[in-house]
């Protein structure tokens, strides 16, 4: 790549490739479901989601079948089959979208492929019964952005995910890819680039929310003959897959952003530290790096300037703590992922003690857009102190599990009930957990809180990297706290005393409580221990490890008290505290339960007396409850 003209030429040439997808909103999406207005033989783009979610639910089989069908019907010229990154609605996978109509097919099985090809691709008739149920209104097919799941979303970091083939650099270029890099290199000084990022108000999307522009400035000003930029793709929060989706769906955005960052801070080498558990993301990023080298977008004299930049992938090996920046640096250097004390911060002493800029994947994904559209545009999105959008991975007890990107300031209620489609099976919402093992659980009272960094912290949780897990009435909050502590204990690096020894003791106390052996004094002990761990731990993992316990203790203390005082688990989760009880009003005195009981602990007289379970002897197997034909046995 010698000049901007080269890039323009490739863009012009590639536009054709993506034409059907370019202005999705203008396309003929309002065509009736019957297929009127569509004629067969029209060129179409068939996008099949190839994210991890859809890969797990079998999208490769769909693609193979589709290939065969296209061959069979000699449609290979008219129809382009593209494997894209994540569409977001993983719950409905495998997903197939056909453009220009934007028909959104969900949960496609191998046998459905033939019908799509023959009806939609050949005859132009949208196969309504295969459409995502939210994508159809009466007999009208809704365009994707009218589907409830997408309506409130605004895609900046995810703009290309599910739209382009992540393995085709030309498609990325067609959608203005590498334009931001060319702009920065030829029109802006490093200081101007940093200034733009500063003015945008972008804050670190990895969880801490440190202003990105300041980080760039510190690294740029740090003295050093060699500097590095690094990308933290060690996404480890359970239930979070934002970064993976960006890397799988739009890897060039990261390559471009890191090159921009390299120019801004004066680095010629970049490292992407990525979890080995993400093989698809690794493979696509590797392809992206190699293609960028081939196109001269990485390497020497990029765009004919004297700027050189190259990058490498480094794989994690299964240690959550390596998401902490200094542990990540140790890991890149080939050491145990034990965090280093800060200061010195990576901006001064990072990889091999050289000044290093470290940002998270999603943070980088925003950079090209900020450069292209300007800081003013970006900072017009969001709230006063949290600008732009945030990607969340929504999971747990929610109808639309998946990936979404919303403007900062959207309320939790909007995300859960509008985007997420509410709680399944008519259950009641109990809490939403944000921030993973560093975050907390937010109860129903605060559902109207606007999502931004500061609000979530004031609610005792945090933004974290963007996992959002919904819990319903069947989830026990003590058990959830125990679950997260179990995670941190397992993932603590073992270096500093409070985290290594303290989280273990917190977990032991929580285990005692969930097993019915807790005492009231345990709750105070938990709180005081949590305080020391927060205040004295070496790194962010330890400093935030007690949050899931503290926030549940704060909002759901009554559940803890039920466990330690009444020896009951209100949600009926903690085995050690479960009780099976006969509901006297409902009991028909049939005696079936007593017959089924393997330890003969149910007393009563057939036809005469209501049956009663002797709790002391009950082994909590649940056989009675399953056997009762009248639903007269409850667990509590």
């Amino acid at each position, binding site marked *: 790549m010698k000049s901007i003209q080269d890039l323009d030429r490739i863009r012009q040439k590639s536009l054709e490739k993506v034409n059907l997808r370019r202005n999705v909103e203008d396309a003929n999406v309002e065509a009736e479901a019957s297929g009127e207005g569509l004629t067969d033989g029209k060129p179409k783009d068939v996008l099949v989601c190839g994210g991890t979610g859809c890969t*797990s639910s079998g999208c490769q089989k769909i693609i193979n079948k589709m290939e065969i069908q296209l061959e069979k019907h000699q449609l290979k010229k008219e129809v382009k089959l593209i494997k894209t990154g994540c569409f977001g609605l993983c719950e409905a996978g495998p997903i197939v979208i056909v453009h220009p109509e934007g028909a959104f097919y969900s949960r496609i099985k191998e046998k459905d492929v033939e019908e799509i090809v023959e009806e939609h691709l050949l005859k132009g008739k949208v196969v309504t019964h295969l459409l995502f149920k939210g994508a159809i209104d009466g007999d009208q097919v809704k365009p994707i952005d009218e589907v409830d799941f997408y309506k409130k979303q605004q895609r900046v970091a995810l703009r290309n995910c599910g739209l382009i083939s992540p393995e085709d650099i030309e498609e990325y270029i067609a959608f203005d890819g590498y334009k931001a890099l060319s702009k920065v290199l030829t029109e802006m000084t490093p200081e101007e680039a940093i200034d733009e990022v500063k003015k945008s108000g972008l804050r670190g999307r990895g969880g801490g929310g440190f202003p990105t522009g300041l980080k760039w400035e510190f690294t740029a000003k740090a003295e050093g003959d060699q500097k590095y930029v690094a990308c933290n793709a060690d996404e480890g929060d359970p239930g979070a897959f934002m970064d993976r989706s960006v890397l799988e769906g739009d890897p060039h955005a990261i390559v471009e952003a890191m090159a921009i960052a390299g120019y801004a801070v004066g680095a010629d080498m970049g490292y992407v530290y990525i979890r080995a558990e993400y093989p698809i993301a690794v493979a696509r990023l590797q392809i992206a790096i190699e293609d960028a080298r081939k196109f001269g977008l990485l390497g020497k004299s990029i765009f004919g300037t004297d700027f050189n930049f190259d990058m490498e992938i480094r794989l994690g090996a299964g240690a959550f703590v390596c998401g902490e920046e200094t542990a990540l640096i140790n890991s890149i250097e080939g050491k145990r992922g034990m965090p280093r004390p800060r200061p010195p911060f990576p901006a001064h002493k990072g990889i091999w003690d050289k000044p290093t800029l470290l940002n998270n994947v999603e943070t980088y994904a925003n950079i090209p857009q900020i450069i292209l559209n300007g800081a003013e545009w970006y900072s017009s999105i969001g709230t006063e102190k949290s600008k732009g959008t945030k990607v969340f991975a929504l999971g747990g007890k929610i109808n639309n599990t998946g990936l979404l990107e919303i403007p900062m300031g959207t309320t939790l209620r909007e995300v859960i009930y509008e985007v997420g489609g509410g709680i399944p099976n008519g259950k009641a919402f109990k809490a939403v957990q944000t921030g993973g093992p560093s975050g907390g659980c937010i109860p129903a009272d605060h559902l109207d809180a606007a999502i931004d960094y500061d609000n979530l912290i004031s609610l005792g949780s945090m933004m974290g990297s963007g996992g959002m897990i919904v819990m319903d009435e069947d989830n026990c909050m003590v058990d959830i706290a125990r679950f997260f502590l179990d995670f941190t204990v397992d993932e603590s690096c073992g270096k500093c005393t409070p985290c290594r020894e303290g989280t273990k003791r917190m977990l032991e106390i929580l285990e005692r409580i969930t097993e019915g052996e807790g005492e009231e004094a345990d709750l105070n002990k938990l709180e005081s221990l949590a305080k020391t761990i927060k205040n004295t731990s070496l790194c962010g993992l330890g400093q935030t490890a007690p949050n899931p316990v503290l926030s549940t203790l704060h909002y759901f203390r009554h559940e803890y008290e039920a466990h330690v005082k009444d020896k009951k688990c209100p949600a009926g989760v903690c085995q050690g505290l479960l009780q099976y009880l006969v509901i006297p009003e409902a009991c028909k005195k049939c005696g079936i339960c007593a017959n089924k009981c393997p330890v003969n602990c149910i007393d009563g007289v057939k036809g005469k007396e209501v049956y009663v379970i002797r709790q002391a002897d009950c082994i909590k197997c649940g056989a009675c409850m399953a056997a009762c034909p009248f639903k007269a046995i409850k667990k509590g």
Partner: protein
Amino acid sequence: MAKNLFTEENFSRLDEVIAANKETKGALMPVLHEAQRIFGCIPLEVQKVISESLKIPISEIYGVVTFYSQFTLEPRGEFVIGVCMGTACYVRGAQPILDKISQLTNTKVGKTSEDGKFTLEATRCIGACGLAPVITVNEDVYGRLELKDIPAIIEKY
């Protein structure tokens, strides 16, 4: 394990990997990843070779290998069953599924069955939260599971 890991072929593959990475800064992690893939584990004999070639003390290599959960000192079973214990899977009932598999395969969590057939692991979130709860058996992924689906899946192997 009946299979002999320490074949000449495996060691020459290791030598190639080391040669390819020798000039890389921070070569240890990439080399260990490959060693794990070649041998299925990273035992003493392999660590000694890496230590001598990369000039890294074996005490440090041992520390690194035991720190990261993807590196193992002993070989794993023929089929590695991973039960995702990410939050999304957990709240959708991953624990009973884990217990059930443990019972069916007679394998404790984190261990390999006596016949070397299964290794049962409670894994970190694999990111297929939309399909929760999820288990993996080697490369195969099973999602949207219920307890009753488990025996049939184990039966397959």
